[in-house]
C-alpha cells in the first residue's frame, strides 16, 4: 500500500514535471526530452494500474520509436526559439480557458456520483493486463479495429514518404528549394494559381505538398556556386 502510494506520487510528479517541461521549455530539443521523461512516468502509472502490456508498449513504441522520430526531426531542423507566454489574444486567453477546462473536469470527476471512482477498482484476475489477454482481445473482439489500425499505419507511412520526398535527388538537397513563387502573389490571392507558378516546368502536380505555404522565404536562398 504505502509503496504504491509513494510510487504513484513519484510517477505523478514526473508526469506533471514532464508536461510542464514540454510546455515551458524554450528549446524544442529540451521539450522533446521532457516528453520522454513524461512518457516514462506514464508507463510507471500504467504499471500501477495493472496494465503491464500497455506500459511496455508505451515504453517501446512511444518513448522508443515516436520520440526517436521527434529527436531526428528536431536535430534536422534545429532549435527555433519563440517567446514564452504566447503572443496576441490567443496566447493570453489560452491558458485561461485551459484552466477553466481543468476546473470543470476536476469538479466533474471529483463531484461525480460514480462511487466506483473512489475505490481501487473492481476485482481483477491475475494477468489482467498481460500480453496474452490483450492479444486475445485484439484478435477476437477487436479484430476490425486492429486491422484498421494497421491499415492506418500503412497509409501514414506512405503519406510520410510522399510528403517528405525530394524530387531531384540527394545532391541538390539545399538548392532545389528556391521558392517556386518568388515575387508572385501567394496561393489563393487573385492572380495566383494554387499549386504551381507560371512558367515553372518543374511545377508540382496540384494537390501535393510542394504547392503549400506562403512564399516569403525565411532564409536567404542558397544558390549553388557554379562549379
Amino acid at each position: 500500500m504505502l509503496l504504491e502510494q509513494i510510487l504513484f506520487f513519484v510517477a505523478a510528479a514526473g508526469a506533471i514535471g514532464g508536461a510542464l517541461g514540454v510546455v515551458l521549455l524554450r528549446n524544442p530539443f529540451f521539450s522533446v526530452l521532457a516528453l520522454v521523461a513524461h512518457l516514462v512516468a506514464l508507463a510507471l502509472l500504467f504499471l500501477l494500474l495493472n496494465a503491464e502490456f500497455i506500459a511496455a508498449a508505451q515504453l517501446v513504441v512511444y518513448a522508443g520509436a515516436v520520440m526517436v522520430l521527434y529527436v531526428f526531426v528536431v536535430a534536422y531542423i534545429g532549435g527555433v526559439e519563440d517567446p514564452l507566454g504566447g503572443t496576441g489574444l490567443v496566447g493570453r486567453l489560452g491558458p485561461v480557458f485551459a484552466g477553466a477546462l481543468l476546473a470543470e473536469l476536476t469538479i466533474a470527476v471529483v463531484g461525480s456520483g460514480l462511487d466506483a471512482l473512489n475505490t481501487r477498482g473492481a476485482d481483477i484476475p491475475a494477468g489482467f493486463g498481460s500480453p496474452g489477454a490483450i492479444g486475445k482481445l485484439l484478435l477476437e473482439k477487436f479484430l476490425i479495429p486492429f486491422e484498421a489500425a494497421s491499415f492506418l499505419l500503412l497509409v501514414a507511412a506512405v503519406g510520410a514518404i510522399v510528403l517528405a520526398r525530394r524530387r531531384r535527388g540527394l545532391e541538390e538537397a539545399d538548392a532545389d528549394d528556391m521558392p517556386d513563387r518568388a515575387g508572385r502573389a501567394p496561393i489563393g490571392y487573385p492572380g495566383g494559381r494554387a499549386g504551381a507558378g507560371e512558367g515553372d516546368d518543374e511545377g508540382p502536380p496540384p494537390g501535393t505538398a510542394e504547392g503549400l505555404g506562403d512564399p516569403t522565404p525565411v532564409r536567404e536562398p542558397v544558390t549553388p556556386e557554379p562549379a
Partner: protein
Amino acid sequence: MTAGGWGWLVVAFPLVGCAVVSLAWRWLPGRSAGWIASGAVLGSFGSAIGALAQLQDRPAHERTVVSSLFDYFHTAGVNVDMGIQVDPLSVFMALVVSGVSFLIHVYSVAYMSSDRGYARYFAYLNYFVFSMLLLVMAGNFVLLIVGWAFVGAASYLLISFWYRRTTATRAGLKAFVMNVIGDVGMVVGAFLIFRETGFLDYQHVFAATDHAFAVNDGTLVAACILFLVGAFAKSAQLPLHTWLPDAMEGPTPVSALIHAATMVTAGVYLIARLHPLFEQAPAAGDVAAIVGCATLLFAATVALVVTDLKRVIAYSTMSQIGYMIMGVGSFAYTAGLFHLMTHAFFKALLFMGAGSVIGAMGGEQSLDKMRGFRRAMPFTFVTFTVGALALSAFPPMSGLFSKDAILAFQLDRGGLYAVLAIVGYIAAGITAFYAFRMVFRVFFGDPVEQAASLEAGELWHGEHFNPATGEAEDTDVGFPGPEHHIAERERPMRAAMAPLALLSIVGGIVFIPGVTDVLERFLEPAFEDSRLAGQQPSVGAEWAGLVLGGMLSVVGIVAAWRMYVYRPGITLRIRDRLPRVHDFLLHKWYFDELYDALVVRPALAFGRFGQTVVETAFVQGVVIGGATSVVRAGTELARAIQNGYLRTYALVLVIGLSGLGLYFLLQSS
C-alpha cells in the same frame, strides 16, 4: 347557322385576323398584311349580315338571342358566362362598326403602306375591331367591361403608334389614363348593380330592375352616374374630354376609326343598352343629356378657332357625340343611334379626306399653311365637301335627318329637353360654319406651293417632321414612313372613300319621317320595353324641325363663304378685336391647364415625395441598409473566426469544450 353562331363569328374573325398578322408578319409580302386584316373585318361584316338575316326571320318579339360558349365562372353567387347577346341593337352596332372598319382598313392598306410598322398597325387595328365587337356583342357586364378595357388598350396602342414621337406617346398615356378613370366607374357601377340585383347578365338584370329599385333610387342613380363616367371618358364628353384632341397624334385612319366612328360611340351604345336602368333612374338620364348638350356647345366653339385640321374634325366629333349622348340621355334611342350611324359615315369620310390633304402637304397639318387644293385634288375635294355637307346637316344629306330626329324628339318631350334642343339648334349653325371653315380654307384661295406642285403633277416632298412641334424626324420604324399617299393616286383610298360619300348622301333614307321607318322598325324590338316606346313627335313637327335645321345649315355655310372666300381677312380682324375670347377658345376653355393644376402637379409632387422620402431615405436607407448592415456585421464577426490561424481555431475548440463542460456540469448539479 343560328344567330348566336353568326354572333360568335362576328367576334372571332378579327381576333383570328389579328393573330395571323401578328404571328406571320415576317412572311407576309408587301401589302398582304393589310389585305388579310381587311378580309377578316369583311368576314365580320358578313357574319353580322348573317346574324341580321337570322334575326329578321324571327317574329318581332323573339329577336333577342343569348348565346353562351362556356361558363366563365360560377362561384359564390356570381354567375357569369362567356355569353353574347344578339339582338337588333347589337347587330346594328356590329354592322356599323364592321362596315366602317372594313372601309378604313382598305384605306389604310394604301395610306400606311410605306410605314415600317405596317403589319403591327394592322394587328393593332384588328385587335381594336375585335375589342369593339366584343363590347357591343357582350351579353353581360363582365364581357362588356372586358371589351371596354381592351378598346382602351387598343386606343393607347394606336395613338402611340409612332412611338418615337414624344408627343404621340404622351397623348397615348393621357388617353389611357382618362379611359381608366372611366373603367373604374364602369366596374364600380357594375358592382352596385350586381349587389342589388344579384345578376350580371343583361337579361336578368333588366328583368329585375323594376323590383330591385324604386324610381330614382339612390343606388341606381349612383350606379348609372358611374356608368356615365365610363361613357364620358370613352366618348370624350366633359369633363373627361381632354384626351381626344391629343389623340390626333395617331395616324389619320386611326383617328377615323377609333376617334370618330367606333370607339367614341361606345358611350352612346352603353346608355342605349342599359336603357332600362336609365329609365328607372331618369335623374341620371338628365345628367347625360345636360352633359351632352354642354359638350356639344363647348366643342363647337373651340372648333371655330383651332388651326390644326385634324383637331377641328376631332372637336367636331366631340360635338356630334354630344348630340348622340344628349339623344340617348333623353331616351331618343333610335334617333341617337341613327345619328351614330350617319356620323360614322361622314366623319370617317372627313378624316380620310383630311389624311389625303395632309399627305399632299407632306405631313403638315396646320390650316394656316393650307390653301387652294381644289384643282389639285378634285376627288378629295368632292368627298370632303360631301362629308362637310353631311356634317352641317345640309339637305338632303343624312346628317340632317339624323340630327334633327334627336332634336325633334327632345322638343316633343318638352321642358328641360326643349331647352337642350334649342341649344342643339344653335350649335348646329355653328357646326355648319366651322365645317365649311375647313372646306374653304383648305380648298379655296390661291394654291400654296404644295398644291401648285401637285397640279403640275409632282407630289410635294419635304423634310420629315413632327407636325405638332416642328422637330425633324427620320422615317425608320416608330415614325411615319417616307412616302405620303393621296387619294388621287391610290386606288384603295378612293375605293374606301367613295362608298362612304355615297352613304353620307343617301343614308338618311332609312329614317325619313312620315315616309320610311326602316330603322325604327328594326330597332323597335330592342327598345320595346322603354317607357317612351311609341312616343313620337308628329310628322308635321318633325318636318318643321327638318326645315329649321336645313335653314340653319345654309345660314352657317353662307356665313362661312362670306368670311373665308368672299372677303377673306374678316376673321383675322375679329380675332384681333377679341383677343381674350380667342385665347379662351384656343386654350379649349383652359381645361387642360385646370387638370394640370388639380391633378397632374399633385400627382407628380406625390411621386417625387415617394421617391425622395419613402424610397431613398426609408426603404433604401433604413430597411435595406439596416438589414444589410446587420448581416455585414454578423459576417464580419464570422469572418474574424476564420482567419487561418491555427491557434485561434484551437482556442475556439477549447472555449467550446469548456462551455460544453460547464453546461453539463450545471445540468447535472
